[in-house]
């Protein structure tokens, strides 16, 4: 199964729409609720990161009987130091993002914690691609 969503940077009203849709699909497929929760929490933090830190992005979701692979490709500033970005508490989020309840530098570490495989591919000045894999 394959699903695709577009995300606009700065669009906090619709942030989480893709995650919400994927949650519905995984439920329909009868996936274990704790696995669904891990998947959608990782996806949601990643989706919010596109809205908070990038200009626009595309979310590609592949589901088969073994698990779900989520690719989040964005056009944006990229991440200069991935090691630093992965540290709990590191954040360059704007005041607006903080007021929204994000921007504490906990997103990437939590994606890592919830996923079975997590990779960040990023080019400064171009964009970032996250690959998140969760096994059923």
């Amino acid at each position, binding site marked *: 199964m394959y699903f695709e969503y577009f995300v606009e940077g700065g669009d*906090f*009203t619709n*942030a*989480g729409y893709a*995650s*919400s849709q994927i*949650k519905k699909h995984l439920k329909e497929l009868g996936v274990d*609720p704790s696995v669904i*929760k891990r998947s*959608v*929490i990782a996806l*949601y*933090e990643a989706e*919010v990161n596109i809205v908070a830190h990038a200009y626009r992005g595309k979310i590609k979701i592949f589901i088969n009987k073994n698990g779900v692979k989520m690719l989040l490709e964005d056009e944006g500033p990229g991440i200069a130091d991935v090691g630093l970005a992965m540290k709990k508490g590191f954040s360059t989020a704007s005041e607006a993002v903080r007021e*929204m*309840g*994000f*921007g*504490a530098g*906990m*997103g990437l570490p*939590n994606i890592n*914690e919830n996923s079975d495989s997590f990779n960040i591919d990023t080019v400064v000045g171009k964009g970032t691609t996250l690959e998140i894999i969760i096994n059923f």
Partner: protein
Amino acid sequence: MTLNDVCNLVSGKVICGESRLNDEISHAFASDLLSDVLTVKTNHFMLITGLANLQCIRTAEMSDISYILIARNKSVTDEMRELASENNILLIVSPFSLFKCSGILYSAGIKPVY
């Protein structure tokens, strides 16, 4: 205690999800930081928050949280109410502060998640 008891203790007003008022709750977590809520491993608890926005409801949706108590009478938008209803989430608004809501419920026996 039931969510109905919770609602009475904090002089709350139910915004949506009335059908859940007879559910029992034993734990709560108070936070204005959604990223922190998203790290909580359990889901049978009530979220007490001062944050009244759509992402707060989205966070509950992703985390399988069924009960949200919003402090300080923050106004709930139609979009928030619709999203909460869609996910069968009980949404209560209290005139009391986050501190007062938490204090009252803690005294009444609601336990912290951590």
